[in-house]
């Protein structure tokens, strides 16, 4: 018999991977092959941060690294850099999240928005430093802003679609024990 808590964790990890697959699938659909289109928000970064601040135990660092490295490779991004920054951002948020305290959404959004901004800023700076030709600060800035704006949507989906919610002190885990 598998421990229900472990099962729950692994189920959510699978869901996380599946969502990443769907995001890649939609992004590589060749619907718009012209240049100069506005970049969409970085959905997976939003989703990672939203889940992380609700249930950090669902997203161990290795999972974040694997999923983002796959995204980097499949979406033709410079491999490794965005993964490393997303992982650092995730660990920053993980260290700052208060377990068992119900935080209002406003401060959470501010903190996450700051982290997202930081990730994109460092990303752009490192790309410029290494002289990567596809670097465009304007587009990156647009993408960062859109990602911050998309965060509440993703947080809503996390809460009501994926049923990932914070553990409150009174909650019991599926075994009936205090977490």
């Amino acid at each position, binding site marked *: 018999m598998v421990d229900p808590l472990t099962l729950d964790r692994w189920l959510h990890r699978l869901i996380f991977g599946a969502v990443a697959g769907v995001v*890649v*699938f939609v*992004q*590589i*659909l*060749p*619907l*718009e*092959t*012209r*240049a*100069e*289109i*506005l*970049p*969409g928000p970085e959905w997976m970064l939003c989703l990672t941060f939203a889940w992380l601040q609700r249930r950090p135990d669902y997203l161990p*660092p*290795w999972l974040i*690294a694997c999923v983002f*490295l796959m995204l980097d*490779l*499949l*979406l*033709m*991004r*410079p*491999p*490794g*850099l965005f*993964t*490393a920054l997303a*992982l*650092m951002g995730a*660990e920053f948020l993980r260290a700052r999240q208060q377990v068992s305290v119900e935080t209002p959404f406003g401060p959470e959004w501010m903190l996450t928005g700051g982290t997202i901004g930081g990730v994109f800023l460092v990303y752009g700076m*490192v790309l410029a430093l*290494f002289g*990567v*030709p*596809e*670097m*465009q600060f304007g*587009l990156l800035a647009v*993408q960062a802003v859109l990602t911050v704006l998309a965060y509440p949507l993703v947080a809503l989906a996390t809460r009501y679609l994926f049923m990932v919610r914070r553990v409150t002190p009174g909650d019991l885990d599926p075994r009936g*024990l*205090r*977490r």
Partner: protein
Amino acid sequence: MAADRNSELDYARPIRRILIGGLVFVLLAVFVLWRVDSPRVERFRAALVDAVVPSFDWALVPVTRTARLIEGFQSYARLAEQNQELRRELRQMMAWKEAALQLEQENAKLLDLNKVRLDPRLTHVTGVVLADSGSPFRQSVLLNVGARDGIVDGWATTDGLGLVGRIAGVGKTTSRVILLTDSNSRIPVTIQPSGQRAVLAGDNSVAPLLDFIEDPAQVRPGDRVVSSGDGGMFPAGLLVGHVALGRDQRLRARLAAEYDRLEFLRVLRSHAGEVIRDAGGLVVPAPIGPAPAPIPAAAQEAGDG
């Protein structure tokens, strides 16, 4: 759980930090490796894409078609207007068609008189566009033909109307086409009728830049841009587009290929594939003036003796 958390903390935290630090280091090392030795990582990426994307194949093409169908329905609103426009264009085209037929007959006759044979190497492989780059910073598409179909890195790709890009990255069943608009794309072109040489440099905008024009004064907006075949990269004379003056007052090429609708692409079997044998060989300009005709070895020996 609450009780043993404290005892766990002392050991778990530092180890965890070291592990995450190591992971970040490895990821950054991958990035630096990509930057320093890009082809090797890109080959790995091509192999990975080749393994992953064809498994989406069954869904990618139908979903794309459906989305395009919906787009098509949206344009039905303008149908009557479009119809009128098409009728008008058709009338013009009839006149052009007559002229083209006459020219074709004349051309065939002249070719026959000259006993010209067209280059048999210029055959093509047609592929379906499976996916695009998925990133607004890279302009490329993935075709469903690859090494299995004999595709070689560097071959030119057209959509029937104009040049689209070149093959860069071949997997077993897929190959990636770097579009002319990608910021890594550099193609030698000739501007007709003045015959000026230039380099078409993609910069992630709709109209790539025409760089290194010998004499910009001789180039006018509206001139034809064709591939020049310099450096043996592409067959010469493929239509690329027309010269246009950009908003930034620089000469750009408005591309002839329909970039918003890349569905089937032709990969031209243009050359056997440029193989770079020596590392960092010097690029020396060719000597000025006509190249000396190659002297047959026998003639040379006879001359010596």
